[in-house]
């Protein structure tokens, strides 16, 4: 880390900040992806499992559906459809706890599998490269593919944006820098050819000629597999190793590492000619375009010390995380905390009876000894958080201002540029939950902004109402005056 803090002084280093959390990947990285996960009794399909508008159901309770059949259609510009992960009966459309720290109920479609797992008639294409480029993103969108690295942003929207802005480089993120998670690693080792095919299909859809796959140097097998799969395609798909460092998988960090360019604040990577997708997304794109298979299952890492047989499982979307844990030998009594995603940026779950969604890359059952749970102590200004911050912020200064209630001042220190990667909290020797402060402050500022907006709107409405009354009064007064004048004239005429 000392070596990296050297770069953090310069105007443009290749890598800034970052930490080396214990990888804890050895529990799962040697085991092949488990594809024999038994169909659960019920599948819970969230209508909102992507960034943007929730999907709208197109089936009714009681309908029999086939695997891959459209259940809910995307709504609006940013949305994604939801398909049936297996054949069965739609038994209910209800409010069910969401895979979110709040576990608040959210519209969910309940599917009871019939055990036959029968596919609907699907249509692939023999040669995706003969399709018109815009057809690729259309097919990706119709298949409900979203960013599988966790963000769950609809991939078709991104592909369209990339084609419109004429991006020069497609970056494929095989970093998987979060501890515990190995689902991308396993996917790259076992299905490298499909991933490379998916990358080529995306390149075709983007009308772009250059893809770079970045894989952390702690995954030599994955690197070898993807390199071998990419070799026949000339320099079109370049596979490169990146240092194992968290958060190497942050898109903007990877972009800086490969291109030397930074995405301007408030901008998008497409602004500097780069688009980034995850390796698992590339796989889903390939499945969607070549075979016509919508996104109905994914590979997810099930790990943590409270799991006896940790491994990667390919499971249907909508499976309860509790079922996945149970399948892998979960010991509930030994569990201190459930985490969805990786331990650095993942979400706490009060219980695992929530469904698997397209963006879930891991479910961890952590034992008490794995969870750092002591109280925060005084900040000693050691500035380890400053060296660790990949965004070049001063976490300790922002924290002290937020503690003092000066949220605006924290904004001046770059609160909005915080990516919540958790590197600062990770290194803090006083165990101060720095990221938690930043998330709180950001949320609070948004709430205040909304409140201010609302107050202003109310004020404007009240003022308009007042003005309207005034106007009406004046109009009435003018009318009355006119009437009086007419009456006087009439009287005068009558008198005459």
């Amino acid at each position, binding site marked *: 880390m*000392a070596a990296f*803090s050297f770069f*953090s*002084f310069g105007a443009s280093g290749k890598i800034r900040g970052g*930490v080396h959390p214990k990888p804890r990947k050895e529990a799962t990285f040697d085991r092949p992806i488990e594809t024999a996960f038994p169909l659960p009794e019920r599948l819970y399909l969230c209508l909102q499992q992507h960034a943007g508008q929730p999907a709208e159901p197109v089936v009714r309770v009681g309908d029999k559906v086939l695997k891959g059949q459209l259940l809910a259609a995307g709504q609006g510009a940013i949305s994604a459809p939801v398909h049936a992960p297996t054949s069965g009966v739609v038994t209910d459309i209800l409010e069910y706890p969401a895979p979110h*720290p709040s576990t608040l109920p959210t519209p969910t479609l309940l599917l009871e599998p019939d055990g036959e797992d029968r596919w609907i008639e699907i249509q692939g294409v023999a040669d995706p490269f003969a399709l018109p480029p815009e057809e690729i993103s259309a097919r990706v969108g119709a298949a409900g593919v979203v960013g599988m690295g966790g963000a769950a942003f609809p991939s078709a929207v991104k592909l369209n944006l990339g084609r419109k802005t004429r991006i020069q480089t497609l970056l494929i993120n095989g970093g998987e820098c979060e*501890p515990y998670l190995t689902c991308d690693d396993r996917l790259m080792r076992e299905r490298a050819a499909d991933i490379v095919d998916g990358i080529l299909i995306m390149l075709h859809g983007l009308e772009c000629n250059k893809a770079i796959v970045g894989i952390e140097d702690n995954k030599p097998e994955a690197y070898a597999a993807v390199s071998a799969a990419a070799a026949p395609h000339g320099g079109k798909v370049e596979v490169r190793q990146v240092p194992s460092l968290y958060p190497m998988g942050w898109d*903007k960090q990877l972009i*800086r590492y490969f291109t030397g360019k*930074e*995405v*301007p*604040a*408030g*901008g998008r990577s497409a*602004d*500097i*000619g780069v688009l980034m997708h995850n390796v698992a997304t590339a796989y889903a794109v390939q499945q969607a375009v070549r075979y016509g298979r919508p996104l109905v299952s994914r590979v997810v890492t099930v790990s943590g010390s409270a799991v006896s047989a940790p491994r990667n499982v390919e499971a249907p979307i909508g499976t309860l995380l509790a079922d996945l844990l149970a399948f892998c030998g979960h010991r509930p009594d030994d569990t201190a*905390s459930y*985490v969805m995603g990786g*331990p*650095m*940026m*993942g979400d*706490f779950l009060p219980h695992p009876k929530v469904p698997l969604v397209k963006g879930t890359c891991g479910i*961890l059952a952590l034992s008490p000894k*794995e*969870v*750092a*749970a*002591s*109280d925060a*102590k*005084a*900040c*000693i*200004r*050691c*500035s*380890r958080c*400053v*060296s660790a*911050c*990949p*965004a070049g*912020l*001063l976490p*300790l*200064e922002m924290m002290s201002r937020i503690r003092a209630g000066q949220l605006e001042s924290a904004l001046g*220190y*770059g609160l909005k*540029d915080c990516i919540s990667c958790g590197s600062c*909290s*990770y290194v*803090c*020797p006083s*165990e101060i*939950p720095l*990221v*938690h402060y930043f998330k709180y402050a950001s949320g609070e500022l948004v709430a205040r902004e909304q409140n201010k907006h609302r107050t202003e709107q109310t004020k404007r409405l009240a003022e308009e109402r007042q003005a309207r009354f005034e106007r009406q009064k004046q109009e009435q007064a003018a009318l009355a005056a006119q009437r009086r004048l007419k009456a006087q004239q009439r009287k005068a005429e009558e008198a005459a």
Partner: protein
Amino acid sequence: MSLSLLSAPFTRADSQVQGIMVAVMLALLPATAFGIFIFGWPAFFLWAVTLLSALAFEALCLELAGKPVKAVLLDGSALLSGWLVAMTLPPWAPWWIGVVGAGLGVVVGKQVFGGLGQNPFNPAMLARVALLVAFPLEMTTWALPSLPFSSSAPGLFDSLAITFAGAPAADGMTGPTLIGNWKTEASQGRGLSESLVSGHYNVMASILGWKAGSLGETSSLLVALGGLWLLKKNIITWHIPVSLLATVALLASVFALTDGERYAGPLFHLTSGAVMLAAFFIATDYVTSPSSPAGQLIFGAGCGLFIFIIRTWGAYPEGAGFSVLLMNALTPVIDHYVRPRIYGRDLKGRPLDLPGGRR
């Protein structure tokens, strides 16, 4: 439920405040042990009294403030403050110097501001400078080094008398420090070559630490080795030590080249007084130094500049304490103006230009 269970990250680095404090004390150990070795029992008594007083004062303040005493005492910060104060004291100073010093450092230097992490000035340097101003005689009576059990080393009972009964040191057992001697001679118009001879200056002895001086400061070599170990352990970063030492060395070289009789050279400066201790252990104090790497470079250079100015033209022979305190006062200003560049923004915080000049 603890907050750390509810909010990511759910994993943490092993480094803890207590571990950092213990590591710094381990790094101080060789130089301290050497000081006790050459200055005898009185140095050990003074060191022990200062450390125990620091703990007692910290406990008292915590008790008065209604804070948890045991938990905070165990973080090791009071012990470290006391240790650093002891390092800078004349080894044969009476016991109450240690007590007052520890009190100044812990109470006035730290706890009145709200405890760990809140103090604007380095507690040890604050104590050192206050003692020097208040008790100039006790703070400038320097014991000469002697081998343990040699005829010039005081016995156990003599030592107890020196530390606890204020017994005056025998003639020939005290002498000036090298910088003190240089300043006195210079004020009488004698050149550097002459004063170095009268001060029995020997380059090797000076580097190793066989000379009159503060309890833990004489061996520049051992202090520097401790500091390098802290660097290797990532407890401190290179920015402050390098910029401080480089500034002193550069200024000393330039001036020594212009007039070698009036100005001491870089080797003399780097191996005498508190420069090494300040570079690795005092100026690097997290709480009172800037938090950005660029700010730390400025801070270190400023300390070096003031050390050189005070030593060369000031009234006091040693300038490390004053210099660090001066720069401590500037830390909030440095932190305000010198910040790292945020990703996607220029140094002034504006978003970077898009390709083609768009913003």
